[in-house]
């Protein structure tokens, strides 16, 4: 009996990937579990002389109320495309230091390709539809992060 529980959490606190995985693996009889985790990294180029100071912190703003609805809607669309077991999506908000975990997507399925595709689909739509905004602090300066055209392109391949 495959469970189809969806868990959506928007939270300031950190999450434990091992515990999230155990929940996905134990609450179903799905043979495949795929997880995606995104972390705060500094991608400023140390080779460039004109590069800004290294990123020291991110601040994640969101639209409370809409975020959970947007994430649940994305998971429902994934369920309409692939046979999925339990799915968990966690997104952190607030101040996040370098190396902090930002986002977790975990998908269980009886089918390996379904688990992979659904996790990618959920991340691609999360990046373009879920109301989160990143503000970056580097060298004491803060600025809003620009959206990337590549994220739009990655979402469009599912249309």
């Amino acid at each position, binding site marked *: 009996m495959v469970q189809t529980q969806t868990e959506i959490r928007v939270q300031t606190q950190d999450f434990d990937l091992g515990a999230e995985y155990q929940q996905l693996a134990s609450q179903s009889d799905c043979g495949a579990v795929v997880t995606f985790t995104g972390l705060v990294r500094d991608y400023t180029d140390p080779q460039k002389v004109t590069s800004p100071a290294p990123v020291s912190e991110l601040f994640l703003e969101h639209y409370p109320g*809409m975020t959970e609805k*947007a994430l649940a809607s994305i998971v429902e669309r994934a369920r309409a495309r692939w046979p999925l077991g339990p799915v968990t999506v966690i*997104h952190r908000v607030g101040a996040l230091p370098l190396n902090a975990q930002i986002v977790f997507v975990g998908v269980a399925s009886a089918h390996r390709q379904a688990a992979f595709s659904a996790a990618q689909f959920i991340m691609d739509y*999360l990046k373009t539809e879920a*109301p989160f*905004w990143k503000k970056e602090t580097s060298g004491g300066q803060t600025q809003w992060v620009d*959206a990337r055209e590549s994220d739009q392109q990655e979402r469009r391949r599912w249309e």
Partner: protein
Amino acid sequence: MKVLFFASLRDTLGTSELQEPLATGESLTADGLRERLKSRGEAWQKALSQPSLLVAVNQAMVPWDTLLSDDDEVALFPPVTGG
């Protein structure tokens, strides 16, 4: 109706929320609301002319030609950058 602004748009406008009354029988689209808000000053004119701006009505993203009701919660914001 309630109008919310987020992220860089809120910072530029210096406003996170305002009330915009809708007269009885008045027909206004999300794009019409945007045009109306532009008349509030130069900062508004400039910030709301960004073609990449997104709009949500009652916490769901909608196209700009969506008709609004007086009890709607409308939110305007720049492209999202989570994940």
